């Protein structure tokens, strides 16, 4: 399409600014929803993957292929971990215990916190140290070390070096009979899977066991495994599966793929249906606007044809108007969509148990390309009917009927 077609289409639209603005705003709203839908359908996957990868472990080993709450523990964990650690495809294994504990705040109120027991031998940690020191492998004398998240630190007014007492609550709701254990805060850490309101503390496995009244060597909830560089997580997974048929090893990739296949596929379907409906409304809006405008301009179009405008030319004019409306609306829809995504994100993060690092809406260049493509397609489809009207317009009959009416 040449510059004169665009310029002419622009003039035609500017002629009824109210209608053009309505169309653009409508497309902007539709485009924003579509954009969010696209960000949403990828966002969860992208950020879930980022969460899994964040600590540097690329394989997870569990006792059963079941959701966390229904999952049995890995028995004889220390032996199993040592055997896995000895595999040539494996670099590191961190044994993890998950539980809860009760702490007493400065105001005397008690708080239920997440309590993690972790191997202190590993170079990688399932958390990111923010301030102070990490759990050391060796004892320095005094109370055992603990790393806490910021929220716990703020609530209990803790500083590195502060002491606090934990009562174990590890057998899923059944308070342990073990006596409370006094810890010293070594540092502050960010735990990737924390939700914004979570209070979390991590201790060495032995101290976790003591707090929960468990045998240190007994079992683990989870092994976090880092494959050896150059070998890759798939090789490590294969080796672990070959070593221990009773254990279930998954690479991060596999976990994301499963997430995508199972729970997430419904989500994708819903998002696809909603996107289609949204686009359909955009399509209707533009078709109606252009059809009305073309209908009002029949005589004028017939006159242009009589003056020598080709059929192609007047048809392209309609297409150009559709593209301009959808293009302007589409551009406007991006900031609108991003703002909407932020707002929705904040609403979703108010839900409990949603890791703060998890993003529902993740921006990827791919989403932008898909967005542009779908809107372009909508513009063309929306222009089809009014284009057909214009292309079939009989010049003489239209000029004549304009005289009669």
């Amino acid at each position, binding site marked *: 399409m040449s510059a*004169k077609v665009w310029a002419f289409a622009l*003039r*035609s639209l*500017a*002629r009824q600014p109210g209608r053009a603005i309505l169309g653009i705003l409508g497309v902007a709203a539709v485009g924003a929803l579509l954009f969010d839908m696209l960000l949403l359908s990828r966002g969860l996957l992208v950020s879930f993957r980022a969460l899994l990868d964040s600590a540097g472990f690329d394989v997870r080993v569990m006792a059963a292929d079941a959701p966390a709450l229904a999952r049995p523990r890995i028995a004889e964990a220390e032996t199993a971990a040592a055997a896995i650690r000895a595999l040539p495809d494996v670099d590191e294994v961190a044994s993890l215990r998950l539980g809860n504990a009760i702490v007493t705040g400065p105001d005397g109120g008690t708080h239920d916190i997440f309590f993690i027991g972790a191997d202190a031998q590993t170079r990688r940690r399932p958390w990111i140290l923010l301030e102070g020191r990490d759990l050391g492998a060796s004892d320095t004398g005094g109370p055992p070390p603990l790393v806490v998240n910021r929220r716990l630190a703020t609530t209990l007014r803790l500083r590195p070096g502060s002491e606090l007492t934990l009562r174990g609550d590890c057998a899923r709701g059944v308070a342990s009979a073990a006596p409370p254990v006094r810890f010293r805060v070594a540092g502050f850490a960010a735990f990737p899977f924390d939700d914004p309101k979570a209070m979390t503390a991590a201790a060495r496995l032995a101290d976790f066991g003591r707090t929960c009244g468990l045998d240190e060597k007994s079992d683990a909830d989870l092994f976090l495994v880092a494959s050896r560089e150059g070998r890759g997580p798939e090789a490590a997974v294969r080796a672990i599966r070959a070593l221990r048929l009773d254990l279930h090893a998954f690479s991060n990739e596999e976990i994301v793929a499963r997430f995508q296949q199972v729970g997430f596929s419904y989500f994708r379907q819903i998002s696809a249906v909603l996107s289609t409906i949204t686009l359909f409304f955009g399509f209707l809006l533009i078709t109606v606007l252009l059809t009305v405008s073309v209908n009002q301009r029949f*005589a*004028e179009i017939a*006159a*242009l*044809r*009589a*003056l*020598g*405008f*080709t*059929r*192609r*030319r007047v048809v392209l004019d309609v297409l150009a108007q559709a593209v301009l409306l959808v293009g302007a609306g589409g551009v406007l829809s991006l900031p609108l969509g991003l703002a909407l995504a932020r707002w929705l994100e904040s609403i979703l993060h108010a839900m409990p148990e949603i890791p703060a690092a998890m993003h529902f809406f993740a921006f990827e260049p791919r989403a932008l390309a898909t967005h542009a493509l779908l809107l372009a397609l909508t513009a063309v489809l929306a222009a089809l009917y009014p284009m057909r009207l214009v292309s079939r317009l009989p*010049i*003489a009959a239209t*000029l*004549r009927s*304009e*005289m009669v009416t």
Partner: protein
Amino acid sequence: MSPPVVEARGVTRTFPMPAGPVVAVRDLSVTIATGEFVSICGPSGCGKSTLLHILGCVDTPSSGELLVDGRDVSTLGDAARSALRLSKIGFVFQRFFLLPMLTAAENVELPQAEAGVSRAERRSRTSALLDYVGLAHRTHHRPSQLSGGEAQRVAIARALANRPRLLLADEPTGELDQATGQQIVGLFERVHADGTTVVVVTHDPAIAARTPRMLSMRDGRIEDGASR
């Protein structure tokens, strides 16, 4: 001798209607020679507009031949017909049909731009044309800011934009008062005097009387083709 600007040979135009076909133009032959100024008149519904549309290549006869510049145009496709209209034929309508969002000058420039005339040439041609129709002072006015007579003069300038050989007008004074109508006819006379072939459809005998040749139509036929 140059061929006639347009020539219809045994042209018939029927419109299929539910109650049976309507014959708007019936086995009609007419030749418009270069440099003529012709009026077509007759009672309402006798086929004047239909004939004008056929002569102007916006409608095709159901049967018969139409030659423009000696060439049969009945087999031309849309693009070729449009190109023909753009370069050789100018149209003036009863209701002007100026584009409301464009100024007088832009309306006159439009067919030139479509024909690929350069911007500079368009500009100078447009101001010359607006000057010619006596509207140099209305260049930047929109159609809504013009009187009916002024709008029709802009429309005539637009019709002349690509220097057509043939200017066709269907009731060009139909929307105007008597005096303004006479001015418009005066303008057509000038256009004719300057070398353009002009055909005007009118039911106003006073206007028909001012043209050297008058075609009187009845029932889709020409009754009396004598030049006076």
